[in-house]
């Protein structure tokens, strides 16, 4: 929805895709409103590249925005967009950049070559079960030697992203079945069985650096840091806060300002090295001692870009829109400002409102939304695909995300207070299995977690 709005603001015509189960989704309403009835096309599957290209050709599209999903990080899709007979512009980094950084293992290699700290673990995709077991055993032994009781390793699909295909393992017996499951999952979803095995670092904070680069990879800036430590048990983000720490407001056991400076420095160093040429996110974990480790690079715009935009000013001006920048730069526009022109003001909090039960391992809740409303404020931006004029059936095929709300405050305290005020104003009713009592959302969880944001 934000991509369509950005296109409309930039004066570009667009078409919008939907699947059969998404026909009643609010993004279709918005597309018709902004682009007319003829701009909506029904396809069989968002992950079928042929569908996307076929519609693009029929509509004579000149560029493709891959959204926030798998295609956004699929170098083959990006390459095909650019190299087919009727080529189009891929709104994202060039395919060779995605290939370079899209593989978590290759990213680690590049990072290590530049002296950027990375998490201990395998440095190439593992396919063989015996080899995987050996790596896991070594990591368990290493943690035991470090005095870590009940050590853990993470098993990840090498080609995955966005928290998908990641599981924690506590012992070797469990490791075997999880390894097979993740390998199977990776094969089904990414067509690559490669698995990455890493040490699980406890009590860490998950930080991100928002990088924006010009086509050609010559000029790079960052739009600050985000803290994405509030996550579900499945490692899906629930609240994001910008900036990543609040050293002026909260005490830390380490020099938090220096950590933020270090990770932005490392991220830009890597962006320069690989010639990064669009919008991307460098993901970091920071240990309780303040040690940052690069986790991965997401070579795409992320859902949470808006929380960085809301605290950013270019030339002192409000209204930064990173998606708009992505489209503009993707089409060859110039990055007309430098890092010195970018400043930061206040604190942003992003809430992901989801139909799920946080008390039951964040299990998704199926059903229908019957009522959704909230108090409008000038410090609040809310995006939702839920139509306000009819009952909305949550599709089973996708994450049950319902809305994305971004709150801005002059200080952390004010942002938190406004966040609570917003959450208290939300009226969200629905039914699951025919019962209103069975319908679950994570609003109470978001409210609980607001109190301690950015504390470490």
């Amino acid at each position, binding site marked *: 929805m934000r991509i369509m709005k950005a296109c409309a603001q930039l004066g570009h015509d667009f078409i919008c895709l939907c*699947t*059969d189960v998404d026909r009643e989704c609010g993004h279709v309403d918005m597309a018709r409103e902004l682009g007319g009835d003829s701009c909506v*096309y*029904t*396809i*069989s*599957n968002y992950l*079928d590249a*042929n*569908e996307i*290209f*076929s*519609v693009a*050709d*029929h509509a004579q599209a000149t560029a493709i925005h891959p959204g926030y999903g798998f295609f956004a990080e699929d170098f083959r899709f990006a390459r095909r967009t650019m190299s087919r007979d009727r080529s189009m512009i891929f709104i994202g980094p060039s395919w060779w950049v995605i290939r370079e950084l899209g593989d978590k293992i290759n990213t680690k290699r590049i990072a290590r070559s530049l002296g950027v700290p990375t998490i201990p673990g395998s440095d190439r995709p593992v396919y063989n079960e015996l080899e995987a077991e050996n790596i896991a055993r070594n990591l368990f032994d290493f943690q035991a030697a470090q005095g870590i009781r009940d050590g853990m390793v993470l098993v990840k699909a090498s080609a995955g992203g966005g928290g*998908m295909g990641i599981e924690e393992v506590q012992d070797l017996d469990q490791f075997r079945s999880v390894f*097979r*499951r993740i390998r*199977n*999952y990776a094969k089904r979803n990414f067509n690559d069985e490669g698995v990455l095995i890493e040490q699980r670092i406890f009590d860490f904070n998950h930080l991100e650096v928002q990088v924006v680069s010009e086509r050609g990879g010559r000029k790079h800036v960052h739009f600050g840091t985000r803290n994405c430590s509030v996550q579900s048990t*499945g490692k899906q983000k629930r609240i994001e806060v910008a900036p990543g720490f609040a050293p002026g407001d909260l005490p830390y056991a380490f020099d938090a300002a220096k950590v933020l400076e270090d990770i932005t420095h490392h991220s830009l160093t890597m962006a320069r090295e690989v010639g990064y040429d669009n919008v991307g996110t460098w993901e970091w974990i920071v240990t309780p001692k303040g040690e940052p480790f690069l986790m991965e690079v997401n070579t795409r715009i992320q859902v949470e870009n808006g929380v960085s935009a809301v605290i950013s000013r270019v030339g002192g001006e409000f209204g930064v829109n990173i998606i708009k920048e992505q489209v503009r730069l993707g089409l060859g526009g110039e990055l007309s400002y430098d890092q010195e022109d970018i400043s930061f003001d206040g604190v942003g909090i992003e809430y992901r409102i989801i139909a799920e039960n946080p008390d039951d391992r964040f*299990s*998704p809740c*199926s059903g229908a939304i019957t009522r959704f409303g909230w108090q409008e404020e000038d410090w609040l931006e809310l995006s939702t695909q839920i139509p306000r004029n009819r009952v909305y059936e949550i599709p*089973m*095929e*996708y*994450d*049950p995300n319902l809305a994305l709300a971004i709150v801005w405050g002059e200080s952390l305290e004010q942002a938190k207070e406004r966040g609570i005020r917003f959450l208290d104003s939300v009226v969200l009713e629905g039914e699951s299995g025919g019962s209103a009592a069975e319908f679950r959302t994570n609003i109470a969880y978001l409210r609980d977690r607001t109190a301690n944001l950015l504390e470490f």
Partner: protein
Amino acid sequence: MLNIKELLEDIKANPYKEIVIKSPHTGAVEFADIKPGDKVRGRSGSYSEKPGTLLANLTREKNRKPINAPEKGEVVNIRTELEGKFVEAGEELLTIRHFLTRKEVIELILKKALHLFRAPERAKYYFIPEVDQKLKVSGKRSVKVQDGMEMLIVSRMKRETPLAYSGPEGIIYSVYFTRGDNVDAGEPLLGICPEDQLTTIQDVVAKVQSEWDEE
């Protein structure tokens, strides 16, 4: 005890199934040389390797993909106004009236005889890798299941969780779901035959074989 004769009579009263052929994906459609009333045949061959009658071609990304009849039957109507046009996914193209086969009738009746393990929720279902491999290598009747055995993976809203079988011990006799397709809550996933009822089930199959005349 099942009254197979009565069940067969019920099915004989309405032995047809209307199959709506929809566009599987986007593309430009060209109908084959068919008209309402034409008989079409479905997939055939020992391994279903022979495609059914060509109904239409759908061209997308320079790939001309044939749309063949999935089952034998009679063409009821064709949307000729779509000829040569770009269609979206899911667009209805034509309808076939299909006379139920012996195998389909057996499956219908077996659904009443077997213990059905049903989908607890609308989702996509997969066998866990170990079971999947065994089914592929040795066939479905090679897998014995028992209460509490982890057997399936439930995939919904992009999350996967294991699902244990609950019900009487037995062998997998029928699998009602297809990989990648959604199954609604309450729909059968598996038909389980307790070992002591294997003879009854084989009797059902034999009876239908002898009493159902295919068109």
